[in-house]
């Protein structure tokens, strides 16, 4: 809280200006102020010079790249056939844009889901829901089924990935739902059926 009250005299203030100049964020006024100080302060002048030299050294790194070990990328390319392109929900979730803004995207998604569920419960559209996740031998399986009182179902898959598997899981759910509804004592507007499908992510050998 005292940061903004720092005196403008004193080298720490001007050293901050040196970093601002290096960051490319110095204002013209600050630039002038720094130049005036540098003319009178050999210590800060030397500091700036050493950073300028360091920048030159860093540029050397870029101009002298390290060689890629022979066959490195070829070995990776040889395993590409084992990698299936991502589709469906996992394709969206793992998209670089989503990953870069993951926290915001997750918050927005949660908000939308909670709003939809709250609306569904409030209006009586959603009558029952259940979720389950389990881990078996390193393979993750997860799903959540929401039954809607007209007999339709909505599946929320935590780690769903392959659209074909997803579609298959929904078919299984519907079939199981019909079977359950036909059983004695079964109520087509009551109960839930749970199924799982395998997450391809945990299964993809990449080494």
């Amino acid at each position, binding site marked *: 809280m005292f940061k903004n009250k720092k005196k403008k005299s004193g080298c720490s203030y001007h050293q901050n200006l040196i*970093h601002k100049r290096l960051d490319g964020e110095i204002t013209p006024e600050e630039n002038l102020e720094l130049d005036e100080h540098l003319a009178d302060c050999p210590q800060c002048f030397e500091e700036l010079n*050493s*950073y300028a030299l360091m920048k030159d050294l860093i540029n050397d790194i870029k101009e002298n790249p390290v060689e890629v070990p022979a066959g490195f990328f070829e070995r990776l390319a040889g395993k*590409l056939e084992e990698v299936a392109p991502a589709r469906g929900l996992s394709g969206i979730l793992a998209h670089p844009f989503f990953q870069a803004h993951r926290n915001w995207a997750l918050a927005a998604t949660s908000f939308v889901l909670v709003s939809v569920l709250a609306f569904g419960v409030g209006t009586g559209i959603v009558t029952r829901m259940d979720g389950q996740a389990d881990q078996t031998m390193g393979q993750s399986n997860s799903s959540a089924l929401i039954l809607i009182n007209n007999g339709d179902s909505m599946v929320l898959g935590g780690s769903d990935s392959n659209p074909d598997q997803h579609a298959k899981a929904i078919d299984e759910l519907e079939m199981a739902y019909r079977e359950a509804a036909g059983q004695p004592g079964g109520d087509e507007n009551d109960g839930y059926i749970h199924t799982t499908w395998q997450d391809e992510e945990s299964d993809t050998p990449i080494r």
Partner: protein
Amino acid sequence: MIPEPHPPPGVSEGQKMLDRAATFEGDKSLDQAKVRQELFTDLVNSIRTELYNFALRLTGNRPEAEDLLQESYFKAYKYFHQLRDRGKFKEWIFQITANQFKNFLRKKKKENTFYHDDSEQVFVEKEKPSRNPDELFMQSDRSSVVQKAFGYISPKMRSVLVLFEIEGYSIEEVSETLGISRGTVKSRLHYARRKLKEILVSGPMEGKVHFG
């Protein structure tokens, strides 16, 4: 289509590759999975040295750089079909590599001891080389000295320095890429510069380069 004997002036090799790929991608008689795979490997090969060095600078040593590259390479291929502008392949795969590096830092965080540095107002890892920096780079010029010096800076600080000073990202771009605030970027950048200078002037790499 009759191939042109000489490409029009100003058309880069990369653009020619993309144009050629576009014709193959439209050809239904070809195995499109194979076409996609070949285009991906061609694009990676066109930036292989830059990509390898980017990972090496982020991690500070070859074994971790190669692990990081392996993860980002397969991840990139998995989502390659979603990349609309193939001309931005380099930026795209660098972004994926930087994202994977964030995960790498999270894993590493669990292994490291942390302390609070009041002067920086950030949590920084205890300074120690990721591996033995002398074994990391086999170059003999002064750039190898700086490369080794980078190895003594913690990965969090180093990643900011690499993106800003070497890759030429803006403060804003570093902030977006690493998912940290602009203030944290600047704070880490200032700390990393001071640390690098200290390592070169009075630290483990003292006297290895003429300084000041």
